[in-house]
C-alpha cells in the first residue's frame, strides 16, 4: 500500500486526486460526497482546480478544419429570437445568482450504484451554503421513487409563494410546483419530468402567485438557483 498520510496531508491529496480524475468507484463517490458535506475539503478542491487549470494552456495549437464552424452552427438551437433571448437572459441570471453564492439551492441526486455493493448504501448528503441575501433551499431527490424533498431553510419575506423550476442545459424552465414557505415538502416528480432531473440541469426558485401555480414560465428573477449534483 501507499505510505500513510497525516490527516491534513490526506485532505490535500484526496482533493487533488478528485480534481485529476484518479479515483474510481466507491473512492470517487465518497470523495464527491465529502466535497458536498465538508466545506474545508471543498475549498481544497477549488484550490487545486484553480492552481492546475493553467496546465491546459501548455499545448500546441491544432489544425482547425474548414467546415467545422458550419457543423457547430447547424447544431445550435433554432433561432426563435424573442423567447430564446429572454429565456437565456433569465437562465444567465439564475446561474449568476448561484455563482455569486448570494443565494443557493443545492440538490443531490442519488444514483443507483453501478455494481452490486457489499458496503452499506452511502448516506444521503445535502450541501448547503448561505449568503448575504439569505435565501437557502436544500433539495434531495430519490430517482428510484421520483420523490423530491425540498427544505426551505430561509426565504425572502413575500406575499407570493416560492415556485421551483428545473432548467435542463440549453432548455427552458419547467415548473415542479410550489415549495413550502417554511420547512420541508415532499414533491412527486411526474414521470414526464424525471428525465430532467439530471446532472448539469439547474434548479431555481422564483416568487410567484400561489393561486395560479404551476405556471408555464417564471414571471420574475430567481431568488435562488443551484446546479444538480449526482452522487
Amino acid at each position, binding site marked *: 500500500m501507499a505510505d500513510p498520510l497525516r490527516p491534513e496531508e490526506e485532505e490535500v491529496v484526496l482533493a487533488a486526486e478528485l480534481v485529476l480524475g484518479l479515483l474510481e468507484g466507491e473512492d470517487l463517490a465518497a470523495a464527491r460526497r465529502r466535497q458536498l458535506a465538508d466545506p474545508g475539503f471543498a475549498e481544497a478542491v477549488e484550490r487545486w482546480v484553480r492552481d492546475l487549470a493553467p496546465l491546459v494552456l501548455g499545448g500546441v495549437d491544432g489544425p482547425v478544419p474548414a467546415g467545422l464552424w458550419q457543423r457547430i452552427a447547424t447544431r445550435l438551437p433554432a433561432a426563435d429570437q424573442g423567447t*430564446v433571448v429572454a429565456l437565456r437572459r433569465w437562465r444567465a441570471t439564475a446561474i449568476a445568482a448561484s455563482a455569486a453564492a448570494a443565494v443557493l439551492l443545492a440538490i443531490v441526486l442519488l444514483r443507483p450504484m453501478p455494481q452490486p455493493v457489499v458496503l452499506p448504501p452511502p448516506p444521503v448528503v445535502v450541501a448547503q451554503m448561505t449568503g448575504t441575501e439569505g435565501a437557502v433551499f436544500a433539495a434531495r431527490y430519490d430517482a428510484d421513487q421520483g420523490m423530491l424533498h425540498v427544505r426551505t431553510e430561509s426565504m425572502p419575506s413575500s406575499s407570493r409563494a416560492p415556485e421551483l423550476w428545473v432548467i435542463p442545459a440549453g432548455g427552458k424552465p419547467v415548473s415542479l410546483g410550489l415549495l413550502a414557505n417554511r420547512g420541508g415538502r415532499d414533491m412527486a416528480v411526474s414521470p414526464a419530468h424525471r428525465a430532467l432531473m439530471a446532472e448539469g440541469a439547474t434548479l431555481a426558485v422564483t416568487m410567484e402567485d400561489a393561486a395560479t401555480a404551476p405556471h408555464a414560465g417564471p414571471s420574475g428573477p430567481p431568488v435562488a438557483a443551484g446546479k444538480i449534483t449526482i452522487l
Partner: protein
Amino acid sequence: MSSTLPIAGDRARERLVQALSAVAGGDRKALKTVYDLTAAKLMGVCLRICQDREAAEDVMQDVYLKVWDRAGRFDASRASPITWLCTIARNTAIDWRRARGLGETAPVEAALALPDGRPSAEALLEAGETQARIFDCIEALDEKPRAAIRAAFFQGCTYSELAQVAAVPLGTMKSWIRRGLLQLRGCLGDG
C-alpha cells in the same frame, strides 16, 4: 509556441470576455467570434487528449455547444476566459475518452511520454495567468510523479490505469503521485 489570439495581452482577453458575455445573451455571431479567437487552441487541447483527428472534431462541436449553453456562467472576475474555455475542452475530451474506455483510444504510454508543454510567456499573459507557478512547480517534481500527474491531467487516467501502463503495483503508483501532489502543494503554497 504560437499564439492563438491575434492581438496581444489584455485586449485579446477583453475581447473574449465581451464575446462570451454576448453569447450569454443569445448572440450567435458572438459565438462565431469566440470560435475564431479560440478554435486552434481548443483543437490542440482536444487532439492531445483524443489522439484522433475525427474524434477531436466531434468533441470540438460539443465544446462550442457547451460554451453556447454555459457562457452565462463564466465569471471574468474569477477565471481567465481562455483557461475557462480550455478547461471545458479538456473535460469534454476526457469524457469522450472515458466513454470509450482504456485501450480503445490512443495508448496511455503516449500520455506518460508527453512533451513538456510550457506555454510562452506571451500566451500566459494573454490568459491572465501571470502567477502560473504550476509550470515551475511541475518541473521541480521527480520524473515519475511528474509524468504520472501530467498523464492524469491530460488523459483522465485513473490510478489503476496508470499503474497498469507503468507496470508497477497500484500502491507504488499511488505513492509516487501522492508524494508528488504534496510536493506540488508545498510549492504552490496554500493561498
